[in-house]
Structure formats: C-alpha cells, structure tokens
C-alpha cells in the first residue's frame, strides 16, 4: 500500500533535535560518556584498587525518569555471578568500576519489575529510532553520571561503532560521541519480564502519525512488536493497527494475549476489526471475542458472519441513532459525546419501532432550535439505504448515483444496522483488485 508523503517526520525530527533539554547535548555529559559494550568484561575494583571480579552486566530501572538509573551490577566473582547494589559504585571509568567499600555482600541477582539488563536485553537488540522513524540495532549504550546517579544517557546505532567493538583492547572501549543519539529519542523494547516503560519514549511515540507507527510496528520482530504495542496508549495503538496490512495484523494478534487483542479490536472501527477477525481461525477468534464486552462481541460476531463480498461485510456498525421523538439538543449531545471515535457527519433517525426514517446532517442540527424535535427536521432528500445482502458492485452504483459520502445499511425489518463510508468501499475494492481473478463473479 502506498502511503502519502510523510510530512510529520520532519516535524517530529525537528521537535526532537530542537529540544534543548536533551542530556547528550550537554558538554559535561558528553565528556564523561562510558561505553557499555567496552565496560562489559572489565574489572570491578574495591576501595583499595583490588580486583573483586569482572563485570557481566549492568542493571537499570525503567520508570518515569527519562534516563534510566543504574541500580546494580552483575559481577563474576570466582566463577559465580553475583549482584552488587548500584549505590556502591564510587567511580566509573571506561576501563573499570571502583566500588566505595572494602567488603561487599555477594547476593544472587533477582530481577525486579521494571528492571532490565543492558547487555542481555538491550545491546545488539532492535530498538525504535523515533527520530529517524526506523528500526535499528543498538551498537553501543553510553553511561554517564547525572543527577546523583549513573544513568543510560545515550545510544549508538552506527555501524562504525559496531565495527569498533570488533577490535581488541582499549580501542573497542573508546566512546565515539559523534554517533550518539539521546536516550530520549529512541524506544527500547526488550526485557524478559515484560515491558520497558520510559516516559520519554512513550510521549515521543505518541507524537507519531498512526500510519508511521504502523510501519514501525511492521518492521519489528515478534517480541519487540508486542512490547511496543504494550507501551502505547490503547487508542493510539488501535489507530495504528487500523493502518496495518491485513496479514501483518493477523500475525500481530497471534502474539498478543486474548485480553489485549480484545481491548484493541474493540477500540478499532468495527468493520476493520471484523475484517481481521474473519481471517483468524475459529478457536483464536472465539478466545478474543469471549474476552470482550458482551455487546461489542455480539456486534462483531454479526459483522464477521457477513460475506465480505456483500454490503454487510464491509459496513461499519458504528451508527449514531436517535429516535424521532428526541430533541435536537439530545442529538447534538450524542454527536459531541462520540466526537473522539466517530467521523460521522450526522445522526440516523428512527421511528418508535426502530425503522429508518432519515439521516440528518450535523449542520442541520446546529441550525435548528435546541428544543425542537428531531422529527421536525425529517425531509427530503432521504438517505440511500441498501440491504445487508447487496453485492458490492450494486453499492458502488448507489454511491455514484447519489454522490453522497455514505450509504446506510438496513436489515430485513428496515432497521439501520450499519453504514458504508466511501473509504470502506475503496478498501473493499482495492482488496478485490489485489485478489485479481477471484472477483470475476461479482461484477454484474
């Protein structure tokens, strides 16, 4: 699928580059950078300079702080891996770590929630470069003292730095700050216990357009993909999911828990959700649907059961329905309440038995008196309505005859059950063109 040229990349990039609060842009921080890749395997010394052991990994805590602080070290002492509290670090240099005490307690490392291991979980793993909108691997991570703690301040994604690590000796440990990105401009996703949450990356991600986010999600590996979804605000995640390719989305849902999948599908446009659900196998679909609210699940079940070659299969069930006896104020209130998720341009009016009477534009409602009844506004032109079982080709004809932006779908009792927007039709038709010869029977 071709996407329109992305203008927001530049805006996001500018916003990030132009940020003066980026730590890496401070000279004091740049001068004290220590390469994590170089530090692994280096000696950990006690107060007197005696070697206690060799560094295996560095533990950091991800929380609300943008730059995660080091909470501990994993050190190999006499062939056993032990944990040393980060508070005991007195000096960090590119060649060694000096502790502030003579005696240390050697304890087994146990991962606490929100912690990750920089070498095992982040270095050489995929991360999202929010700035450049791409998925990359971390070539190195940089630590520096800041705000009373040693923190991860930068990440290096350059190939040059990757090659540097192949060399023996001190050359491999030399920091190369010219290639460093600020930690705030990337999203790190791996952690074996669950999710790495950094408030900085989350807010940076939330600035992206759903379509760009969808591209990033598609570029990530399975586990990282799940982690990114977990990190996102559900509404934004649902928007991004709508932009994803069908088969990609199918694969993604397989990697999520039924509860999370249900949550996201319920937030997506019903017709888009139904399209994905239709492609899943029965068992998986049922497990997702049974984790949803009853009403939503029922609605989606019905949508899924419709043939995607017919009107019922491509419609969205999201309709704003008012009774003819309702007031204009009530109708407007309904529109306002649904402004977040609905792109609808008005309300559908039904009689006391729920049968379709008219579709009233928002503008007409605004122009009318708040106290007047909706029934007063019912007038020509009446909306075009089609039955659930109308073939897509006929829907297209109705569209071109009426030049409207939507068509209402009614059941056999004349009750409105959905709407087909012009873009639903475009989606349906473009899917069909991709499928080629299979669509032969539909054109009448």
């Amino acid at each position, binding site marked *: 699928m071709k996407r329109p040229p992305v203008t927001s990349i530049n805006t996001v990039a500018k916003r990030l580059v132009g940020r003066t609060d980026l730590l890496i842009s401070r000279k004091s921080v740049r001068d004290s950078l220590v390469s994590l*890749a170089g530090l692994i395997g280096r000696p950990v010394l006690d107060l007197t300079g005696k070697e206690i052991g060799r560094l295996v990994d560095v533990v950091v805590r991800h929380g609300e702080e943008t730059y995660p602080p080091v909470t501990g070290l994993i050190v190999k002492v006499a062939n056993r891996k032990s944990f040393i509290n980060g508070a005991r670090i007195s000096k960090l240099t590119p060649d060694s770590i000096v502790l502030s005490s003579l005696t240390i307690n050697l304890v087994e490392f146990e991962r606490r929630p929100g912690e990750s291991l920089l070498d095992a979980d982040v*270095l*050489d*793993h*995929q991360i999202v470069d929010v700035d450049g909108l*791409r*998925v*990359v*691997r*971390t*070539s190195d991570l940089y630590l520096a003292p800041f705000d009373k703690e040693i923190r991860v301040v930068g990440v290096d*994604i350059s*190939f040059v730095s*990757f090659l540097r*690590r*192949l060399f023996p000796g001190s050359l491999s440990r030399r920091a190369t700050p010219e290639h460093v990105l600020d930690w705030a401009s990337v999203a790190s996703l791996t952690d*074996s216990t669950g999710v790495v949450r950094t408030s900085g990356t989350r807010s940076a991600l939330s600035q992206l357009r759903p379509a760009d986010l969808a591209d990033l999600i*598609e570029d*990530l*590996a*399975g*586990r990282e*993909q799940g982690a990114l979804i977990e990190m996102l605000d559900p509404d934004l995640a649902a928007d991004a999911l709508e932009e994803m*390719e*069908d*088969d*990609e989305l*199918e*694969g993604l849902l*397989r990697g999520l828990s039924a509860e999370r999948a249900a949550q996201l599908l319920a937030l997506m446009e019903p017709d888009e959700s139904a399209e994905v659900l*239709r*492609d899943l*196998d*029965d068992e998986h679909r049922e497990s997702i649907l049974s984790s949803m609210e009853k009403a939503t699940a029922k609605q989606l*079940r019905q949508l*899924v*059961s419709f*043939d995607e070659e017919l009107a019922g299969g491509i419609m969205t069930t999201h309709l704003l329905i008012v009774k003819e006896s309702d007031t204009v104020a009530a109708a407007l209130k309904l529109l306002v309440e649904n402004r977040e998720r609905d792109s609808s341009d008005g309300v559908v009016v039904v009689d006391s038995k729920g049968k379709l009477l008219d579709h009233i534009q928002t503008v007409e409602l605004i122009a009318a008196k708040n106290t007047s009844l909706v029934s007063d506004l019912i007038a020509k032109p009446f909306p075009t309505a089609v039955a659930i079982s109308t073939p897509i080709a006929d829907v297209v004809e109705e569209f071109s005859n009426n030049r409207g932006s939507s068509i209402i779908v009614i059941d056999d009792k004349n009750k409105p059950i959905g709407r087909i927007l012009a873009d639903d039709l475009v989606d349906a038709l473009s*899917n069909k063109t*991709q*499928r080629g010869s*299979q669509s032969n029977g539909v054109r009448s």
Partner: protein
Amino acid sequence: MTTLKIPSGRKLRLAAFLAVMGPGIIAGLSDDDPAGITTYSQLGAQYGYRLLWVLVISTLALIVFQDLGARIGVVTRQGLIGLVRQKYGARAGSFSAVALILANLGTMTAEFAGVAAAGQLFGVSRFVTVPITGLLISFLVLRGTFKKAERVFFVLSAVFISYVIAGFMSHPNWGSAFHGMIVPSMPFNKSAINIATATLGTTLAPWGLAFIQSYAVDKRLTRADLRLLRADVWVGSLLTGVIGFFVIITCAATLNHEHIFTITDASQAAVALKPLAGTLAKDLFAIGIIGAALLAASILPLSTAYSVSDLTGSPAALDDKFDEAPLFYMTFAAITIVAGGLIMIPGISLIWILISSQVLNAILLLPLLAYMYGISKDKKLMGEFVAGKKALTLYGAITVLVAVCVLSQFWFMFHL
C-alpha cells in the same frame, strides 16, 4: 456460528505459490546447481553406489535444518545473522557473517564455473561467458525484471529432473543402490573424505539456511503460514535428495561402469545423460547447468547482501535505494565481481573449484549450525516453538557429523 469458512485470497495465493515455486523448492533446485551436480557425479563415478548413504544423511540433515530455519524466521521474525548478533554479541555476529560471505562467495564462484564449463562444451571461452553472465544477472536483479527471469531459470534447471529418467534407462544395479543407501561404509582416504564432505556441504549449503530464514522474515510469513512453509521446505529438500540420488546412480551405472572414475571436465559428466539423450546428452547437460547456475547465481548475491545488511540491524532489500542501503548493494557487487574474477584466473581448474567450494561450504557450515542449535533452544526467542530434547539431540548429532567430516578433511590436508 454460521460463518462461512472461506479461505482469504491471500492464503489461497500463498498456498498456490508455495506449492509451485516456494523458497524451499527454489533452494532445493538451486542445491542441484553445477557444484551439486558435479559433486554428485564425482561421488557416483568414483565410488559407484557405495557412498549413497552420505547423500541420504545429507538430505535428512537438509530437511531438519531447513525446517528449523523456517521456524526461526517465522517465530523470531529476524534474519539469522541479526539474531546471532543479538544473542551472541558483536563478534559472533560478524564472525557468522564472514563465514556466510565466504561460503557464498565460494558457491557463487562455482556457479560461474558451471556456466564456464557449459560454455566450453560448445567451444565458447569462459572469458566470454563469465562476464556476460555477471552482467546479465546484475541487470535482471537490479532492474527488477528478476521475477520473470527467475521463472525461466527455474524451468531450465528443472531439466535436471531428466536425471530421474536417465537413471532408469541406465539400468542401475538397484540392489547395490539400496545397499549403498542404508549400509554405511567409508574408505578412509583423502579423496573419499573429500567427496563426502563436499556432498554434505553442497546439500546442506549455508546460503540455503540463511535464505529460507530471511525469506520468511522478508515476506512477513506468520505462524499461520508455517505449515505451508514447512511443507514447501520438506518437498524442496526431498527434491534435492531425489535428484541427487538419480545423478549418483546414473553416474554409477554409466561412468563408474565404464571405468571413468575421475571427472576432469563437464563433457565427461554429460556422458551420464547418454542413455537418455544419446548424442544430445551434452546439450541437455549444458542447458540444465546454465539454468541451475543462473537461478542460484541470481539468488546468492541477493541473499548474501540481505544477511550482511541484517548484521547492521536494518535488513535491506531491492526496493531500497543505493544511498539508503549502500552496504546491501556493495555486498551484491563485491560477491558478483570477486566470484567472476576468480574464474577468470588463467588455467584454474573448473572441476576443482566446483568441488572445493562445496568442501569450503561444509567447513563454514559448522559455526552456523552451532548458532542455530543455540537459538533453537532459547526459550526467550523461540517461545512455544523452543526445541525439545529429541530435536536438540538430532541437531546436535548432525552438527557433530559435519564436525567429524571437517576434522577428517583437515587431518588429510595437513598430515598426509
């Protein structure tokens, strides 16, 4: 529920595609490239039916590891080299990339050697055929008309299925063939070890492992597609084995029978097709060799370039521009030019290149198999698809077998 179960268009197309021309089948037919055919021919000519069991084991190893590669690709959605970097670090990642590049360079050289040998059957100098082939492949692949060309190469290389017919027509000794398949016997000498190692290296080629995995990643195959992909891989691997089997028994029944024990040029290997094609044997052989060589030579530099860019974290493909993926295009060019250049060295023996490159394959296969073994048992990466005890034993046994072959090879190289 009253849902009509209609397979979506994509699934149908994928099934149809995989059945006809999936990555497993392409890899399978490309395994029967000039190097493969020459190695199998030499094995049959020199040892008759006796070493058929080496092919049987190589085919089983191919099935097992291609299947594993497909699974790793689908589950982790990362290429082999990138995954090695993530799990084992920068040095291991680079090491595996270098191993793969060298192995692929060797095989690419063998593809050019195949084209050169086929050209010589008709008296055309390799100084003409090799540059033309290099330019043709680069043109087709970089211009994007590769997909259509691939189909043509595919059909041409399918000429080797004629070995199956030739096999029957050459009246092989089926009893000896059966015996050779199931009863291992191994003359412990330099040439026997050499040809057995080459057979292992040409059948279970390093590039095929990286190719199947990156294919799954690049085409974004999901777990739902895994069954289809695995079926494709099994069929493709078996096809390699079946064609290899018939090449060996045909050569055993013709060349070995007529006491031609060492193949020194392509015209000798073509003699094996005489029972089928008579005086046209040479032409049939040349068509097959050229088709298979072009098929493999189009995929090899692409697959290598993909793996190298995978090391950097952002796997590139043909739809990237040069300045977006310079490493991708430079690798592509380097592989093609160096391989072509090696063949142009005056006086170099084509048959030697064809077989030695496959020995090199086996040597460089070793670290890749070890890394795949490690990845397969990593619960964090493989999740529910993590390898169980039985699978691990199988992977381990194959890896050890390759190691034994390679060590014997070294032993003969340096001590005798």
